[in-house]
């Protein structure tokens, strides 16, 4: 645990909100524009609530610009969009 953080350069994008058409398309378009490569997607709709979790490679992206672009998209399409470096999930759930 004392070593320097292991840089994986992957991030998790979480999208939660009322389901409507075009959410995946809109998020994917921003990721493409920002040079973030989608590696995995899991998506469910439970009682009209849309839940999507994406694993993306951000090694070629500018993290700050990507986060800003996703925030702008969140305002535009009215669902909650979060991007977080994946280490936080590894730290919390895996020993």
């Amino acid at each position, binding site marked *: 645990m*004392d070593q320097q953080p292991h840089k994986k350069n992957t991030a998790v994008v979480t999208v939660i909100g009322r389901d409507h058409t075009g959410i995946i398309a809109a998020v994917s378009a921003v990721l493409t524009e920002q040079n973030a490569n989608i590696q995995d997607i899991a998506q469910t709709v439970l009682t009209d609530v849309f839940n999507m979790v994406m694993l993306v490679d951000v090694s070629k992206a500018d993290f700050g610009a990507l986060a800003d672009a996703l925030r702008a998209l969140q305002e535009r399409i009215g669902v909650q969009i979060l991007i977080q470096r994946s280490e936080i*999930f590894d730290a919390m759930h895996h020993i």
Partner: protein
Amino acid sequence: MLNTAEILQTVHMIAEEKLDIRTITMGISLLECAHPDPVQMARRIYDRITKKAERLVRVGEELEREYGIPIVNKRISVTPIALVAAAAGDPLPAARALDAAAKETGVNFIGGYSALVQKGMTPADLALIRSLPEALSTTERVCSSVNVASTRAGIDMDAVRMCGEVIKQIAAVTPDGMGCMKLVVFSNAVEDNPFMAGAFHGPGEGDCCINVGISGPGVVKRSLEISARGKPFDAVAEDIKRTAFKITRVGQLIAREASARLDVPFGIVDLSLAPTPAMGDSVAHILEEMGLEKCGCPGTTAALALLNDAVKKGGVMASSHVGGLSGAFIPVSEDIGMIEAAACGALSLEELEAMTCVCSVGLDMIAVPGDTPASTISAIIADEAAIGMVNNKTTAVRVIPAPGKTVGDDVEFGGLFGRAPVMPVSRYSSEAFIARGGRIPAPLQSLKN
């Protein structure tokens, strides 16, 4: 590979249960800033802090953005100023330099306008303690602490008497006595505490380091509601341990990452459950979730003992270096459940004192009537110091004798500092007890060698 349930749990903890990193605190040694000329000393202090902590706030904000977790405070702790200002004689220019450096670096508080006097006071310690009313009323972000006791040294009752008097003076010269919330009187103060107002960078610390304080009472409470409602205490303890582990791992990640980006060694993670006045961020509500009608009723000390111990057991394996205060905090004004309990009379000063035997810190952010005599405040400090001294633990007192206010009134501190109902204190006098002065000898517990 994605585990959606785990990811959504983390997102939920942050968004709904107020999981956050309470503070990233950079500890900076100022020993090299000592100078016989107060002006030179102040310049050295300002230059050193602004250089070392230049990027602290920016890096904190970067980490917030990249990991999606709020880092509520970015702060600085420094070498106790009584040591740094000993050569100059006058500590006040150092207070002004600290305040200016805090503003320049963008941190909301800077701690370490402090003196360690558990066994006696040097002229510099005396000067610092006497300067506190002016220092805390003329600066905005400077926090102060005085360590008046330790298990090894006993209790310096002269310092205890002075602290009671100084607290009254600070209350008189700051609006609603609010300057008092920037002064903590300790027994067994720790050198690597990242939390304000008691943070300082101890003389045994290195040149510079990063200490992180975690939080998350809301996460613990929610988890108990879901997984342990109605179950025996074994299940409660297990559930708290599991949650504390997860919270601390996030703290460790942020601490390591901040340390790498700032190129400053990682010090410790402080495993404290720090509440805020926001709904769903209360330590008192965790105790109530265990089955107490109101925090402060019989059973509260036992519930807190379990909570405090389980947080440590869960957290200790999650971090490579655990330190600071590491325990549940019970500040009255900063915890909505504590505020409610104190306001309805369920929580008394005496019950709070009992609670401090089994958790972190002590009588914290408590408003008492404005006409409380200095000797009574000193005696409250002495009681807390004795608990710390005998039990080998840190205890502290941060009380606000709010001028003109009495039991039934409230003191509004604003923001994260919340609101404190003025609590009753004993009407009987401790005057003659405090007038004695001298030292209470170190207890038998100190003879360990």
